[in-house]
């Protein structure tokens, strides 16, 4: 329709697809090579489908929940498609890049929320007062067709790679420990498969590259997971397909979902051996941390006056504390404190530790900035040693230290 395509090229591509042997030697229902790289930052994923590249990163923010839904956090998916060289050229017959953004963002939002890939309750910290707001940013680095699939898979992967820092609430302060322990709970992995329908060809093709997408008159995106659940479906353009074709497509989608989930699981298992992808400016990260700490302190002040019981209760009800040994260690620490020293001295020591931890945090970030791997490793070692020192003093009430102690006990 609005394709800026020469007639010869169009005819050749159509003939190629009809004969089930596409221009890059794929079959009609073959995906291009999919590469997944997990990064060390929160929710960082680099996904490549052929030449299409998507980079994602997620960030967490502390907010109050909605009054009607006190134990639900927030999800937001933002997409950035402003890659300069593509914007001018990209005119698929279905729509332009900026119009696609609306489609894609809405589809991802709708499916991931209604199919409960991850639920909002897992983002709750204090019921009614404090929840996480997770925003996942998707950046389109290179566009070569089939952005819908790439964005969808990338957003699910970034959810898998998101780590929630634990929030400990003591008497007077909330501490956000950036030592990431808890991965976001992703219940199932929905995968989107997009079928492009071309005029004159009965069977649709999967994973079109940019030129093939220009040929296509309509698309159908089917979202499934490996447990054979259909999570969502959306189409654009006038499909002109039989009901049987659509059911066939959903069955093909199931096969593809299984293949892709396999690739994803392998990549996730190997994630620690990959290079660190580092593109977010550390300044932004620091300001976000400070902002989070500020909001945390505000909330604490707001309800500290009302309820002391609440804080104790949340400590008890916290899902983080699961293991009995850990609970015992915490209790021992607390009892030691109550017996030996005053509250004020405790606070001072805790303050000092906080300062040290934040200093260490800064050091680590400086190390990251420098970009020199060997230096980084040294600094990481230093950090670990310092933390061990603090732990050995036995005053830290945080869970990570308790867990480490438990591990020490196990090893010892």
């Amino acid at each position: 329709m609005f394709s800026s395509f020469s007639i010869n090229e169009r005819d050749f591509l159509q003939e190629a697809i009809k004969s089930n042997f596409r221009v890059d030697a794929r079959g009609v229902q073959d995906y291009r090579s999919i590469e997944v790289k997990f990064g060390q930052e929160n929710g960082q994923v680099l996904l490549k489908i052929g030449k299409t590249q998507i980079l994602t990163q997620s960030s967490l923010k502390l907010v109050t929940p909605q009054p009607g839904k006190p134990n639900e956090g927030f999800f937001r998916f933002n997409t950035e498609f402003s890659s300069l060289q593509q914007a001018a050229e990209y005119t698929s017959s279905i729509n332009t890049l900026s119009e696609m953004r609306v489609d894609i963002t809405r589809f991802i939002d709708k499916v991931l929320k209604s199919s409960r890939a991850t639920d909002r309750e897992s983002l709750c910290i204090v019921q009614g007062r404090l929840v996480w707001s997770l925003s996942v940013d998707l950046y389109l680095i290179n566009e070569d067709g089939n952005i819908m699939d790439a964005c969808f898979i990338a957003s699910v992967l970034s959810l898998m790679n998101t780590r929630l820092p634990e929030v400990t609430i003591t008497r007077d302060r909330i501490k956000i420990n950036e030592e990431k322990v808890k991965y976001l709970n992703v219940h199932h992995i929905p995968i989107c498969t997009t079928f492009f329908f071309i005029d004159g060809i009965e069977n649709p093709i999967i994973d079109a590259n940019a030129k093939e997408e220009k040929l296509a008159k309509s698309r159908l995106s089917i979202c499934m997971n490996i447990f054979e659940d259909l999570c969502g479906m959306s189409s654009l353009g006038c499909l002109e397909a039989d009901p049987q074709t659509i059911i066939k497509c959903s069955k093909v989608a199931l096969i593809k979902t299984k293949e892709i989930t396999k690739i994803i699981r392998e990549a996730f298992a190997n994630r620690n051996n990959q290079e660190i992808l580092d593109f977010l400016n550390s300044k932004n990260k620091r300001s976000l941390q400070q902002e989070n700490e500020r909001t945390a302190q505000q909330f604490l002040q707001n309800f500290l006056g009302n309820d002391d019981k609440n804080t104790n209760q949340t400590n008890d009800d916290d899902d983080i504390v699961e293991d009995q040994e850990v609970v015992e260690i915490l209790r021992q620490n607390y009892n030691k404190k109550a017996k030996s020293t005053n509250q004020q001295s405790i606070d001072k020591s805790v303050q000092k530790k906080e300062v040290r931890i934040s200093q260490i945090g800064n050091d680590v970030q400086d190390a990251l900035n420098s970009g020199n791997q060997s230096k980084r490793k040294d600094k990481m070692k230093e950090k670990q040693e310092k933390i061990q020192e603090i732990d050995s003093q036995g005053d830290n009430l945080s869970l990570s230290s308790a867990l480490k102690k438990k591990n020490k006990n196990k090893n010892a």
Partner: protein
Amino acid sequence: MLELRHDNDQSTLRMNGRKLLELRDIKCQLDVMKNTSGSALFEIGNTKVVAFLQAQTLGVNQLNRGILNVNFFVTNFSAIEHRADIKKDIKMKEFTRMIKSVFEQVILLDLYPRSQLDLQVFVLEADGGYRSAAFNAVSLALMDGGIAMKDFVVATTAGLLGNVGVIDLIYQEEKKQNCEFVLVHLQKAQKIAYVNLNCNKIRLSDFEKLMSISVDSCDKIANEMKTAIRAKLVKNINSFYFK
């Protein structure tokens, strides 16, 4: 409130006493607004959607085919709660694109060079199934305005209550969002033009069920629309002999 209840003679009924595959009352009115090229009001149960068509001229020497513009609007008094912020609603933007993409390929735009067809679709009352009602209203408005189309476009909404497939959801049934399935069907070619599934994980077998019941209900809705069009034409049959 029970979603389904069984009667004495073992026929399952839904909340408002309908059978599983029973549609609500449909009312189609054509030529509802005098100053427009074409207009239509489509009512199914309490859901009311009105579509206005304005065929305009463009001054610029454009391509050799017309342009279709769609503006879809869910009014803030249409749902149970009044909604103040509509302009930033991304759901409506998404749905305008859906309507536009389907009708751009069904209308024979080559016959309207250098013209612009402006469609305004308003949801006056949303009591479940307003998306399919919007497609139907646009289809009627285009027919009323004398715009050439390749085919007769009909849409329907289906859903799942538990494991049971039902047709034409009302607001309470939709809200639970077990499943909402919008299907747009082309009557002459007997093919599907648009699919949209909004659900919380359903089995593939359930999906096949949904497809088959939706296609059947599209035929029923198409008959209602056709009788309305025929009635209008017969009513004004004298005007065919004026000239």
